[in-house]
């Protein structure tokens, strides 16, 4: 039918604004990483609940299929305790925490250098590469024919390749932004991010190389143990500390208490995080003294963590009332408490006498959860609370969803972490007494029930974080300049020149 263009109404016209597939607006990369990270948090904790169910009902919560496919042949799909556990850990570390760490890098680097991220398209592309790799890797975990083996090493090789490309791209964007900024010693957050990211690249490369060359059983197990520990101590812990060193001075509107203490914390962390990874090399083929040096590294990690937490606590000095509500500083304070607690528990677990009791028990997973879902998650929650209104340009004073995020996650992590630690101690003690398997399972089931409930609460906390982000984006007033963190929402009108 012919249309007379003069009779077209405005609503008949197609929209003229075309959004590019890869956005290049300021903070688009940080925004993308933030949003995707929260989706991963909900997914990871959901898988975590399923993992506890596989522990509670061994052999009952499982699904194995064999598909006959053309060309490929028989393709097995295995959803059972080992694969669900692998999916949980990988989704947590590479999905939620790594995306949040990348978001922190993309958000913080421009704000400390005074330069735009160079450039946001690179960062956005990195987000795509990384997450396609993680999603593909997570699917591969459940396909025995292509899955790797070992903690945080189960992803198939092509998935690791995509992730490496994504991480290299973020490093490139970060490096170019730093080069464009001032030529002086960067703020300590940048130092934490840079070394953590470099370590992640190195460790992922080692893991991929070991998989490519198909190392034998023991060497492969040693490499995987080293890589998994290194990813946690360098990448996750480093990014969490870097985020806290940024958000605490910003949110408290105080200067960093001591640059010297912060730098000393960074130096000690840089040294002992690597040593701690060496401590994972536990095998007769590794000289005993080398493993001991690694254990000492884990014990000594208490020092940089304490120095970092002390510096941050001194920075909050005079603004403690801000930690009583729900907001950036409350999240940061919880993260600091978990950081200290986890460092001490890991140091205790590194002692030889304790290792004999807790080896191959639930203790290890409990401490991991306190570190990953406690310290790192709350550090990134603090960053999210600080960054989200700024990257989305919203005047935001919080909502009940943020309360649910804080309390749900806090109670959940405490329950899950300490229930698993308790299960580990009980397991070790019963094993030493030579208890029957049925008795061990019956005892552990109570601890596992609590852990499952805890992980469920964390999952609800993650969902609450997503809801809070959605509510902020859809209901809060648009603000070109967002209010400073120290000013109650509403007192500073939209347009005030205070944002960082």
């Amino acid at each position: 039918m012919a249309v007379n263009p003069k009779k077209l109404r405005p609503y008949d016209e197609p929209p003229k604004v075309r959004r590019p597939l890869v956005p290049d607006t300021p903070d688009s990369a940080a925004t993308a990483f933030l949003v995707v990270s929260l989706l991963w948090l909900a997914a990871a904790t959901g898988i975590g609940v399923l993992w506890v169910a596989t522990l509670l009902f061994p052999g009952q919560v499982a699904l194995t299929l064999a598909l006959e496919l053309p060309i490929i042949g028989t393709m097995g799909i295995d959803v059972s305790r080992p694969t669900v556990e692998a999916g949980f850990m990988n989704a947590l570390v590479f999905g939620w925490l790594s995306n949040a760490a990348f978001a922190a890098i993309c958000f913080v680097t421009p704000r400390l250098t005074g330069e735009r991220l160079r450039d946001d398209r690179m960062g956005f592309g990195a987000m795509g590469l990384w997450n396609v790799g993680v999603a593909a890797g997570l699917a591969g975990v459940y396909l025995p024919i292509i899955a790797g083996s070992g903690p945080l090493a189960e992803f198939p090789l092509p998935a690791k390749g995509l992730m490496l490309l994504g991480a290299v791209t973020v490093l490139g964007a970060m490096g170019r932004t730093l080069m464009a900024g001032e030529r002086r010693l960067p703020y300590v957050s940048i130092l934490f991010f840079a070394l953590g990211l470099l370590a992640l690249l190195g460790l992922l490369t080692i893991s991929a190389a070991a998989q490519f060359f198909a190392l034998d059983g023991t060497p492969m197990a040693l490499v995987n143990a080293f890589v998994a520990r290194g990813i946690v101590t360098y990448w996750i812990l480093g990014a969490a500390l870097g985020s806290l060193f940024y958000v605490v001075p910003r949110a408290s509107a105080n200067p960093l208490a001591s640059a010297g203490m912060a730098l000393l914390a960074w130096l000690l962390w840089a040294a002992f995080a690597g040593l701690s990874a060496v401590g994972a090399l536990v095998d007769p083929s590794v000289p005993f003294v080398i493993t001991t040096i690694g254990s000492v590294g884990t014990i000594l990690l208490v020092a940089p963590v304490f120095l970092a937490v002390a510096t941050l606590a001194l920075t909050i000095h005079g603004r403690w009332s801000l930690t009583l509500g729900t907001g950036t500083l409350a999240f940061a304070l919880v993260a600091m408490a978990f950081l200290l607690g986890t460092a001490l528990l890991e140091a205790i677990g590194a002692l030889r006498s304790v290792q004999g009791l807790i080896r191959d028990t639930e203790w290890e997973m409990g401490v991991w959860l306190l570190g990953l879902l406690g310290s790192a998650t709350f550090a990134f929650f603090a960053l999210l609370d600080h960054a989200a209104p700024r990257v989305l340009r919203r005047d935001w004073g919080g909502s009940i969803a943020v309360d649910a995020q804080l309390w749900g996650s806090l109670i959940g992590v405490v329950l899950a972490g300490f229930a698993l630690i308790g299960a580990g101690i009980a397991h070790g003690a019963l094993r030493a007494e030579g208890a029957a398997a049925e008795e061990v399972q019956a005892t552990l089931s109570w601890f596992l029930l609590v852990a499952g409930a805890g992980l469920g609460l964390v999952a609800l906390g993650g969902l609450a974080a997503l809801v809070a982000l959605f509510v902020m984006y859809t209901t809060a007033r648009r603000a070109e300049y967002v209010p400073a963190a120290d000013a109650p929402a509403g007192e500073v009108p939209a347009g005030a020149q205070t944002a960082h």
Partner: protein
Amino acid sequence: MTVHTPIETGSRGIPGWALGLTVFVLLVGGVYFAGNLTGENPPIVAPPSPSGSGAPVLNAVAIIDEAACQSCHGPDLAGSGAFPSLHDIENGPVSENLQAFAEEHPDDWAEIWIAGIDPAVSDPGMRGGMPAFAAPPYELTAEEIAAVVEYLKSLP
């Protein structure tokens, strides 16, 4: 546009108590290190513990070690990552996806699975089943596969 300001620092020095605490923690680490110089690490990949002994079993352990079965099926062959446990298979496979196959071949399902489920296919890697065992460089003989199966069935 967003305003960026550097983060100010209150002091550049390191308080004495922080230095003292660092030295104290280093000393604790040093004392622990000095007290733990000798000892024996446990194996990261625990060797399988057969319920019986004898030449066929020892041979099977060597074959399994050489083929690095533990890298997929776990240090004690009790399952790892996506790979199922190889214990308790005397009365049939643990994996549900093998149940129907085992009903069709109740006596030799394990041998057929390791060798590849379709021997008519010339490329062992394309046969399905356990191509890692049937393909180069392992290319297990029927006797070797039989020894491995006998050993696996002995695992509780």
